[in-house]
């Protein structure tokens, strides 16, 4: 009997020791791990999104900020099919799109964002149907806001929902995050973005919030940094008003002494706010099927033949290479120049002209004759010095380097020795394969104005964080070695263009403008109208290039726009 009691007690003790040992294993050996798991169960880390940095013009006018909005989230473990079906109707999104957002469902019940920037009307409907939408959460959020809508679409660009590809490149983003897509928004993304904060709340097993967690302090967000652009909002608005009556046009103005871009407008354009809400297919189709390509930044991405605006550079080259003097008179212009068996036309019959007169009257025949004397590589090399055919490295994406033909280019395009000096005749009047952007032309003319140096054009003046300046763009200077006397002749000629020549439409009473018209042929379509100039002619501050596509003569269409802009810039006087 005693053995049996002992044996049963032994079994009892053994079983209890097994339980005890397992308790020690769970509560002491693995206790820390389980405590962490228990916290992960009950503590939900909630993202407090950082507001994106604001964007101002040079005078502190707000060009992009954030505004409050609503985001819809779903707790997958709490919701059901009928709620999702109803939500898909209310949100007007296909149900499988909502379901896709909920993949992969995590073990711990937590809300997953499914749609951001939901309008107030929709939120009101969701609140009305609250009881039929278990697991659907509406939370306050903030989102980018572009108060001037279209005006800065090509400068600031826009933000949009992150794509999977972007997400795979940078894992610090989350699905549904907004990220800069074009313009300043993408180039300065790392400054504008800020760092999201977190708050901790206690949740129950069904994922419902019980309240804030006292033992874990929230991590505040760091708002995105504020960016001050070099843009002058009023000048931008003025330029926009002036060109938006044409079908396709662009304006660039830069401060000659720094390279700061004072305005940059490309038309047509688009409203960047449309990328924040789910895209309206009709609106989107209208934008992408628009033949004028509103997303195309004509100021920096579009390379045009410069037309006659190129002539001053050719003239300067001829002077520098001693091919002519300012007083040399070439063969008189009778409207046509015969070279070999080809006839090259001028737009008028100018008679006998010297260099000044040729620029002033924009005489082609004079420059055809220079074309017979200049080697293609000499021209290319000279152009490159002024930044033509090269990226200006402006701080927004999408820039076109343009094209300045040289020996290699011609060999590649036409075959070795399949091209002749005849090509140069066209190049010297800014036609043919010579292609430049409006931005490059402002750079070229600011170099003329400065007497031989120019700055890298840039859009961001400074970046501020909490009232502290953390980055100031320093002008980057490029020198071109030019004989000042030669350059003065050219500047003189440019002043005469506006005073007596083809650019008279730009003339102002109070300020002297120097500049050059251009009419770029664009067969079979009508010509593009150019005017590039700077002011005041004797002590230049600003260089402006205007291109109006298919609008005819630069002198008639583009020149008055520059005049108005210069008037506005120096007098702050609004248009009559």
């Amino acid at each position, binding site marked *: *009997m*005693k053995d*049996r*009691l002992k044996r*049963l*007690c032994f079994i*009892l*003790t053994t*079983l*209890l020791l*097994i*339980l*005890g040992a*397992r*308790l*020690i294993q*769970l*509560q*002491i050996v*693995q*206790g*820390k*791990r*389980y*405590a962490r*798991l*228990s*916290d992960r*169960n*009950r503590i939900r880390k909630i993202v407090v999104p950082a507001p994106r940095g604001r964007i101002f013009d040079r005078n502190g006018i707000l060009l992009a900020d954030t505004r409050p909005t609503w985001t819809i989230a779903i707790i997958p473990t709490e919701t059901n099919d009928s709620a999702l079906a109803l939500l898909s109707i209310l949100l007007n999104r296909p149900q499988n799109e909502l379901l896709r957002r909920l993949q992969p469902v995590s073990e711990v019940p937590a809300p997953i964002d499914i749609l951001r920037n939901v309008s107030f009307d929709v939120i009101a409907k969701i609140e009305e149907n609250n009881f039929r939408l278990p697991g659907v959460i509406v939370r306050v959020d903030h989102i980018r806001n572009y108060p001037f809508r279209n005006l800065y679409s090509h400068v600031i660009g826009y933000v949009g929902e992150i794509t999977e590809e972007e997400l795979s490149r940078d894992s610090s983003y989350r699905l549904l995050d907004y990220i800069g897509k074009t313009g300043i928004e993408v180039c300065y993304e790392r400054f504008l973005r800020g760092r999201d904060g977190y708050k901790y709340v*206690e*949740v*129950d*097993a*069904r994922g419902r919030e*019980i309240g804030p967690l006292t033992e874990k302090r929230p991590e505040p967000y760091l708002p995105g940094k504020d960016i001050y652009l070099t843009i002058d909002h009023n000048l931008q608005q003025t330029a926009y008003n002036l060109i938006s009556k044409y079908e396709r046009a662009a304006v660039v103005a830069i401060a000659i002494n720094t390279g700061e871009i004072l305005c940059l407008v490309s038309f047509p354009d688009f409203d960047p706010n449309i990328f924040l809400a789910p895209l309206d297919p009709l609106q989107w189709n209208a934008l992408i099927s628009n033949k004028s390509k509103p997303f195309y930044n004509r100021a920096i991405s579009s390379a045009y033949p410069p037309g006659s605006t190129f002539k001053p550079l050719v003239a300067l080259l001829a002077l520098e290479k001693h091919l002519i003097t300012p007083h040399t008179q070439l063969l008189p212009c009778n409207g046509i120049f015969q070279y070999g068996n080809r006839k090259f036309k001028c737009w008028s019959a100018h008679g006998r002209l010297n260099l000044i007169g040729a620029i002033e009257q924009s005489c082609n025949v004079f420059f055809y004759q220079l074309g017979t004397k200049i080697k293609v590589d000499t021209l290319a090399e000279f152009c490159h010095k002024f930044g033509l055919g090269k990226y200006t490295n402006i701080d927004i994406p999408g820039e076109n380097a343009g094209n300045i033909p040289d020996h290699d280019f011609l060999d590649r395009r036409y075959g070795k020795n399949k091209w002749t000096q005849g090509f140069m005749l066209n190049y010297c009047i800014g036609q043919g394969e010579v292609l430049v952007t409006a931005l490059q032309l402002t750079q070229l003319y600011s170099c003329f104005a400065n007497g031989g140096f120019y700055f890298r054009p840039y859009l961001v003046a400074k970046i501020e964080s909490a009232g502290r300046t953390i980055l100031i763009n320093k002008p980057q200077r490029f020198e071109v070695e030019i004989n000042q006397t030669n350059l003065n002749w050219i500047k003189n000629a440019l002043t005469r263009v506006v005073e007596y020549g083809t650019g008279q439409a730009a003339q102002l009473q109070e300020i002297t403008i120097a500049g050059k018209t251009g009419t770029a042929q664009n067969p079979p379509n009508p010509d593009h109208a150019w005017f590039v100039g700077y002011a005041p002619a004797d002590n230049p501050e600003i260089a402006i290039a205007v291109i109006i596509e298919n609008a005819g003569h630069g002198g008639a269409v583009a020149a008055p726009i520059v005049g108005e802009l210069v008037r506005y810039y120096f007098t702050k006087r609004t248009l009559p």
Partner: protein
Amino acid sequence: MKKIDITLLGTTCLLVIIGLLAIYSSASSQYLFRQLIFLSIGITSLLIACFTPRRLIYGMAEIFYGLTLLLLILVLIFGSGPGAHRWFAIRIFNFQPSELAKISTVIILAKYLSYRRKMDFDFKTLAGPTAIIIPVVTLILLEPDLSTSISFLPMYAALLYWQGLRPLYILLLFIPVLSFIAGFSLYFWIPFFTIISIIVFLRLRFFQALAAIATSSFFGLLSPVFLSLLKDYQRARIKSFFAPWLDPHGMGWNIIQSQIAIGSGRIFGKGYLNGSQKRLGFLPNRHTDFIFSCIAEEFGLIGSIILLVIFGLLIYRLLLIAYKTRDQNGALITIGFAAIIGYHVFVNIGMLLGILPVTGITLPLISYGGSSLVVTMTMIGFALNVAMNSE
């Protein structure tokens, strides 16, 4: 002469109080209130069991047993429960005949076995007690309630052992059942078969051993046949009993959360009423089957060990009563109850600790629920009865 066993009564009271505190912490005062009503019924039946003359109990054993069988048959026809026929729904609580069967089976087995002075491993000795237990276990298995029907086996083994049957013979007796259960899963069956083979070849003569192995193989092979006859959902239920981790969002979720609750309690616990796993609803059935996880979360290792020690003391006390009494029938009753309570404690806590399969089994005197509390207190009552009349 008539002396109440203070240790047994004391540990019982302690466990009941711990249970009430735990129910309040894990559920609500409403559940506490209902448990207090069950407790009053439990105290009444404890007193009845304690003071009913032993002769009366002895005499009523067959009637009691017959009534139990009748109820077990009726519950199969009229009973309810989740996907099963387990209980009669009577107004405020559910009455489970299988709980009652634990008591009546122990009493009649004790009566039958106490006739026998000597236990041998032969048909004459074992046919009777086996015939008593088989209908009960079978009826409960049909409900189906696998875990409750299994709880009769350790009780049966303990009674036979106490009556003097050698452990080896008990093992041989259980080979058909154990082989059948192990046969549900190859992972259980291979080690089981190996161990059995080693034991029988070491301890028995060659032909006896061969016969044992043959029996084992036969019943082991029977279970796949049995399984193939079942419907898919029934098969799935049996499978999940053996491998709960295959179902992480159902049973697996429960057991994972239970271990998180226990483990995160660490040494001193999170404090009474402060268990976050429990409070925030991560623990399922937290006031019934999973109540030990709540206690371990709030009172830590120290509280859990103290609880185990109290249970150990209670069962030890039952064994000691059986040992001390000269009344063979009373001793067997007490041993049977000790085995049932011990099985519940070990299996319930073992499953929450993740070392045993998940089954719906309560922690005696602690878990919320009328049947379990009343039946356990009745058992304690009988044991007190035996203790009082032991000398």
